[in-house]
């Protein structure tokens, strides 16, 4: 079975989906990503779906689940690069993917996550080291 690669860039995991999103692939990605977040202790996940022509309800729900799981692990998920046709289809289907943050492209997605990291830095300025010891392995 094909797998979606998960790349670590700084404090962010980048997932660029370049293959057809079959149900099994989506579930596998969900598991892989949860493990990688825990292993690397990142605080941001970017899922790039600019190569996806079709996002069905299952994939939409899986992405929502991934976002929820990541949030529990203290990593914020941003879905980037959704195509207009995909967005229109999702709206027509009544799937507005609540709770998922989106950005137009990877660059804006990284910026969005960067802003959050800045805020966190300010919060922890005096006592704690940023981006550390926040994730605990269950």
């Amino acid at each position, binding site marked *: 079975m094909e797998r979606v690669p998960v790349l670590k860039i700084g404090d962010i995991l980048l997932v660029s989906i370049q293959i057809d999103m079959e149900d099994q692939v989506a579930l596998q990605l969900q598991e892989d990503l949860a493990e990688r977040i825990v292993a690397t202790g990142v605080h941001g996940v970017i899922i790039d779906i600019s190569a996806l022509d079709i996002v069905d309800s299952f994939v939409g729900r899986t992405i929502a689940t991934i976002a929820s799981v990541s949030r529990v692990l203290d990593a914020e998920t941003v879905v980037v690069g959704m195509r207009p046709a995909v*967005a229109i289809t999702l709206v027509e289907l009544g799937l507005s*993917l609540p709770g998922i943050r989106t950005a137009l492209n990877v660059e804006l997605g990284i*910026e969005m996550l960067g802003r959050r990291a800045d805020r966190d830095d300010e919060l922890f300025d005096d006592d704690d080291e940023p981006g550390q010891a926040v994730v605990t392995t269950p």
Partner: protein
Amino acid sequence: MPLSPDEASRFAELLEGQAEQLAGRWTELAAAGLRGRLSSAELRRQTADLQRGFQQAFAGGALDLGDDAAAELRAQLNELSSNRARQGFSATETAVSIYAFKDATRDALGDQNDAAVLRDYVAFSNFVDQAALFTFDSYVRVREAIIADQAEQLLELSTPVVKLWEGVVAVPLVGTLDSARAQVVMERLLQTLVDTGSPYAIIDITGVPAVDTQVAQHILKTVVAARLMGADCIISGIRPQIAQTIVALGIEFGDIATKASLADALRHVISQSKRSGR
């Protein structure tokens, strides 16, 4: 009463023999119906061509306008009606040009009290009627094609997406929004967001005369789709009456920002993008 082969050949002869005179008379009669909107030289050329078409059709043994021998004539009639349609003549004016041929030919026939001549004429008149109806049909077809083309062009023209600021695009909507247009606007806007990487979009509805539930639905869908893609949409240009209609209809814009003017919307967007540190 359709033409018999005999009659067809007799008419072919008649049309050939009195070509000059018939065309002249026909032009005269047709010109009366067109009220001088076509130069007489131009009309003369058209009628002469058509007459040749008729003559050749009869000479080829066409008894009906659908016959193979009349194919050339049909093509001529088609061209005539498409030209007339484009020049703005009415369908009746176009058909009357053909009908005039009957009158012109009647004058050229011999003794009008002769039963044989009369029979000939009725059959011939039948044929010309078919030709005129055919013109009518092609005229309508061409007109419909023109209307469809124009509707498409209007759709293209009426939905520009303009860049207002760095990272801000705007769609000034003008005119009534129906489903087809809303679809085009939505696709165009979303595509521009992707192409320019603008995180903000303003939909300006100053030029929309009325907002009903359907129009609001279309706008809301566009906003939700833009959000899904990661861009924020603001609605601006809501006139007082429209605001009242929206409230009266119970349309909920939810957490979508709405501003009275495009300037307000732009100010809002700029302050927002500053706040988010860009």
